[in-house]
């Protein structure tokens, strides 16, 4: 692990090996049921997606599919785009991100500051709309190389070799793993790795309960299940309301001093729920990012969290 007494040749070398910190104040029985948080917000661009971006790009280069002159295209409303922007910059590729037009302002700002181009998709179609639009662009022009985290096995592999292996190395026992469900990469990859070391581990997904506004799909045929996600490999899949996610964020900040993002709040909510079902054991919560990118959102003070949050897909 890099410390102040070592140097690194590249920022990319600092991706992963994130801290695992105990959250005794969030356990109902801290001496018997231990909850640990994997702080993915400490990656170079501030989220777990650094792992995925680096792995997708390096594997594409190794296959000879990504060569100088091609440009990167990815549907993302934030973290994956920012992570790809860093990797693209240091490796000399251009990047265009397709994102819903209702993502927070910081998201577009930071992407543009990193040098990425942003193309907007209709906000009411949520992530599905961004996926559809990016797929259509990639089909029209072969210059685009789309890493496409939803279908790229490098995504779960980054978590199998990185996130999951790091947790397995750090702990003698893991009874429950909780991560946010987005692409499914963390849950599939880290879940598979942890099952090798701890066969009885419960792999649990925290999933956002979307507001009506972002479910403006015309029909269910517009739905999307990421190809890398195999729901049969999840042991639990728990819906978390925006209100409970914000409750999780507040618990983390007020009781443990961790300033976390929305999905991390949901993950902690589920981690505490599942910890409450245990008499003893170890629960690991993967906190995908920190709270900085959500500061412009209204929910920090708004009394009616549901109303202020329902117009956005938060993770």
């Amino acid at each position, binding site marked *: 692990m890099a410390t102040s007494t070592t140097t690194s040749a590249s920022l990319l070398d600092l991706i992963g090996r994130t801290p695992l910190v105990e959250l005794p104040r969030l356990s109902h029985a801290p001496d018997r049921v231990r909850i640990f948080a994997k702080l993915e917000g400490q990656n170079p661009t501030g989220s777990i*997606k650094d792992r995925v971006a680096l792995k997708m790009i390096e594997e594409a280069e190794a296959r000879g599919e990504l060569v100088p002159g091609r440009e990167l295209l990815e549907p*993302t*409303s*934030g*973290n*994956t*785009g920012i992570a790809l922007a860093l990797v693209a910059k240091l490796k000399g590729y251009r990047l265009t991100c397709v994102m819903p037009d209702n*993502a927070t302002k910081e998201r577009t700002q930071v992407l543009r500051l990193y040098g990425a181009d942003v193309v907007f998709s209709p906000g009411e179609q*949520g*992530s*599905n709309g961004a*996926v559809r639009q990016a797929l259509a662009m990639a089909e029209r022009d072969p210059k685009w190389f789309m890493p496409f*985290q*939803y279908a790229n096995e490098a995504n779960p592999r980054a978590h199998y070799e990185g996130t999951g292996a790091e947790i397995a190395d750090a702990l003698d026992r893991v009874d429950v793993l909780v991560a*946010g*469900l*987005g*692409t*499914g*990469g963390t849950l599939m990859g880290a879940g598979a790795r942890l099952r090798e070391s701890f066969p009885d581990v419960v792999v649990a997904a925290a*999933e*956002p*309960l*979307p507001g*009506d506004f*972002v*479910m*403006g*799909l*015309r*029909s*269910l*045929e*517009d*739905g*999307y*299940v*990421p190809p890398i996600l195999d*729901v*049969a490999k*999840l*042991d*639990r*899949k*728990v*819906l*978390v309301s925006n209100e409970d996610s914000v409750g999780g964020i507040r618990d983390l900040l007020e009781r443990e001093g961790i300033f976390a993002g929305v999905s991390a709040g949901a993950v902690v909510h589920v981690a505490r729920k599942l910890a409450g079902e245990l008499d003893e054991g170890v629960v690991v919560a993967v906190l995908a990012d920190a709270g900085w990118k959500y500061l412009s959102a209204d929910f920090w003070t708004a009394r009616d969290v549901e109303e202020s949050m329902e117009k956005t*897909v938060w*993770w």
Partner: protein
Amino acid sequence: MSVVRIPPALRDATGGESRVVADGANVRELLDDLMSRFPGLGPQLVAGDEIAPFVNVYVEGEDVRTLDGLETPVRESSTVILLPAMAGGH
């Protein structure tokens, strides 16, 4: 009777209602009852003997695919949520 929350994409079949009630001791019975009340839902919710691939059914906040599927028990006090499968992961 359990409360069933209906997502916008299915509300044409429920006359615009976002919450309806249905009866059943498990998800299979509850969906059967729901589809008999709102026949337009039928072809969208079930494919063969499975929940349709782009539909998620939650009982008390947990996806029944990770519980007992169509056999997952439903209590009178349970809220059942139907949602379209959506891509997350930013």
